[in-house]
């Protein structure tokens, strides 16, 4: 008895699946399963509203097709959004490449210019001291 009493207060955290819903709507669920689903309805306003709404469809068999159609449209919508995002990324991409190449080129040019300038101003090496001393002796 206490277990059943506990059931009144506890909110079921079970997730409902589409097949279960369809079976309930087409009265193909067994006694215990019907009670479980109706308990979910009593606990969860979302499930309750959904079941009440789904019961209003003229042809319950169309429901699966409607859901499939909506899911396909959703996928298309998300793919479109992703494609737009990717396109934006691609549009920005060549500029990044160009900037990197330009920067590298500038670095190479700077290196070459500095190296050649530095090389031209470098003082020539002095003659050895012994050669200078010998030359002094010869003049005397």
């Amino acid at each position: 008895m206490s277990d059943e009493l506990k059931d009144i207060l506890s909110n079921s955290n079970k997730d409902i699946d589409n097949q279960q819903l369809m079976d309930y709507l087409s009265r193909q669920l067994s006694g215990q399963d019907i009670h479980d689903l109706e308990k979910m309805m009593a606990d969860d306003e979302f499930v309750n509203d959904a079941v009440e709404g789904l019961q209003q469809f003229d042809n319950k068999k169309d429901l699966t097709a409607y859901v499939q159609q909506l899911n396909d449209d959703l996928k298309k919508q998300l793919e479109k959004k992703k494609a737009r995002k990717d396109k934006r990324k691609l549009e920005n991409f060549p500029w990044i490449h160009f900037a990197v190449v330009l920067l590298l080129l500038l670095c190479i040019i700077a290196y070459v210019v500095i190296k050649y300038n530095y090389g031209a101003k470098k003082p020539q090496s002095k003659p050895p001291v012994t050669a200078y001393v010998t030359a002094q002796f010869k003049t005397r």
Partner: protein
Amino acid sequence: MKPDRFNHISDQVLLENYYKDHNNEWLGILLQRYTMLLLGVCMKYLKNEEEAKDGVQQVFLKVIGEVGKYKIEYFKSWVYMVAKNHCLMKLRDKGKITTEINDRIIATPDETDETSTHVEKEMLLTQMASALQQLNSEQQLCVTLFYLEKKSYQEVAEQTGYSLLQVKSHIQNGKRNLKIMLERIKQNER
């Protein structure tokens, strides 16, 4: 990505994945879990099959556009509020309802007694039987048949002679009244 492959992943994990990499495919999997329920909700309020389908698409668009703006923890409650508000706004635009719509989007679950500890629940259960006796006769009968004898709505309706709608209403109101009574007992004990 096939949604079935992700059945073992909870809504919260899917949302976290979306917030991490902003990959819309996570959102797609999440939304597809609720397509049928959303279709039902839209149909309940709009009472037209085409408008209901259109409503679900609008809800999808709204969710895609707004999910990034909030830190949503309970997706199911949030998406339900988005759908319900969308339908109520449509009805208001048509002049079918005049009640004020709560535009605030709730990102938290319905208030439940989930926060109460197991021990507290056990204590409350001892008072449940007497609280049940205090319900009016209709609610008491429907709650007892539904929760304690595990009968379906249809069986309760047949046994009591009430309509299905009345049975649902008695069960929901009875449950709410029981909660209120138990809360009152809890407060008196403090």
